[in-house]
């Protein structure tokens, strides 16, 4: 792998992109999980697919290449995230209904754009399950830029996000602008999803946002600890997943998720053992 890694640009692009999303997906994922919004990631990833299909359609039918599928996917994802917020405000008592609406809307649009672009091809397959060879230099640089912006914003608004996630009522009473912070957060989530899709694919992107968090939740005492552990688990899953995916010629989405599940099971087991030991000792 090392020789290949030095020789092939695309492998380096993929690997570095993987390292970036190994940070940003669990970073946002931690807030998503504690706020019980895990399914929103799924809904947004399907909207992103519609955006990607739209980009591919433009490319095929009109030879428009300056809007890459990454950018059109991102645009759709962000618009979808704003829609989810609007729907959640409309259906106050049934906030979760926003998720199936946006998810099915995303799939519906995807089907339309895919068939307009003359159906399925390998490119689309890569978007569904991820790929070790699909990341171009341009994509990598875009994702690098997005990652820096995301990490910077989370760093700047960390204390507000934590306070809001823990107890929205108290945060509002103490004078934090819950609505604006929440909107900012959901837009960031949309960007992370769009950025991650090249590596893990539409169908599995929410797994990279939630599984490392589910694992670290078993072990961490506090929030910061959980955040750091989630990122470590996320990175481990991405690195092991990408390498094994490359060797066995399997889309990395599959291997990354399987590694994440192994980490999750190990953390549940570890918690059990330490609990039993504490009781016995």
């Amino acid at each position: 792998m090392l020789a290949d890694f030095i020789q092939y640009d695309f492998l380096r692009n993929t690997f570095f992109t993987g390292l970036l999303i190994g940070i940003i997906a669990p970073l946002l994922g931690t807030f998503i999980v504690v706020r019980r919004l895990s399914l929103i990631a799924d809904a947004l990833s399907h909207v992103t697919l519609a955006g990607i299909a739209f980009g591919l359609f433009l490319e095929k039918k009109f030879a428009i290449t300056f809007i890459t599928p990454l950018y059109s996917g991102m645009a759709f994802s962000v618009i979808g995230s704003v829609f989810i917020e609007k729907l959640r405000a409309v259906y106050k008592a049934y906030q979760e209904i926003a998720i199936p609406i946006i998810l099915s809307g995303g799939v519906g649009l995807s089907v339309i754009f895919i068939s307009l672009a003359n159906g399925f091809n390998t490119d689309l397959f890569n978007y569904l399950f991820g790929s070790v060879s699909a990341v171009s230099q341009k994509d990598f640089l875009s994702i690098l830029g997005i990652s820096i912006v995301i990490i910077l914003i989370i760093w700047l608004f960390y204390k507000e996000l934590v306070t809001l996630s823990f107890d929205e009522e108290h945060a509002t009473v103490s004078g934090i602008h819950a609505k604006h912070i929440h909107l900012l957060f959901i837009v960031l989530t949309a960007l992370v999803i769009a950025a991650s899709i090249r590596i893990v694919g539409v169908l599995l992107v929410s797994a990279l946002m939630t599984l490392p968090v589910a694992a670290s939740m078993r072990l961490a005492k506090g929030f910061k600890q959980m955040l750091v552990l989630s990122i470590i688990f996320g990175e481990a899953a991405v690195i092991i997943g990408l390498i094994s995916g490359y060797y066995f010629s399997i889309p990395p989405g599959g291997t990354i998720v399987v590694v994440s599940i192994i980490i999750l099971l190990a953390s549940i087991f570890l918690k059990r053992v330490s609990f039993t030991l504490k009781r016995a000792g």
Partner: protein
Amino acid sequence: MGAPLITLKDVSFSYDDKEILSKVNFQINKGSFLGLIGPNGGGKTTLTKLILGLIKPDHGEIFLFGMPISNFKDWNRIGFVSQKANSFNKGFPATVFEVVAMGLTAKIGYLKFFKRSHKQQVLHAIEQVGMQDYAYENIGNLSGGQQQRVFIARSLVSEPELLILDEPTVGVDYENVQRFYELLHELNKAHGITLLLVTHDTGTMTEYATDIACLNKTLHFHGNPNEYAALKETDLSRIYGHQVSIVTHDHE
């Protein structure tokens, strides 16, 4: 008596067509410990929500620290403790330190960071409520009474002048309720924090409060504990309507 911190003038509020509060006039002065009691559905929680600016009155005016509520911006002068021992985000893995630090978020302000001096403030607030041995424990592993102390520390850390507590003893056992009131008493006397305590616990509270107000749609009584004790059965049943029997049986 000090200056008025909260003033309500002819405040009315309805949910849909049901009138919850009708022409409530009410004042809390600096340094007092006011116990607000009344039957369930009497509008106690609605009143706190109005004071906290979470909802707006249909009629009447509210003043905080002498300023109309619409112009009031210094929300960190007011601390709020709700029934959160029962309803905060329980799955959230946060240490006691992290939870109390959240009380400083709004005061520190946007785009500014948590510093070493803030850390001292947080530890001090944790000590004030006697939870220093648990500072780095997960909040989810504590008892209801301990959690409630942590939530008080979260309100105290921003050094509010007025603390509003909405039924904070719900779900806390009897012995801890006593300790809880002693803590409130100390905050009021030693630290000069003005308290508004909303409760249906008419027993213990009267030993510590300096003022008692009864609310059932409108304000039926506002006086000191001695005056409250002198109220006759007939007055109480007027205040509580049909609920008088339920309330007295509560404390048997």
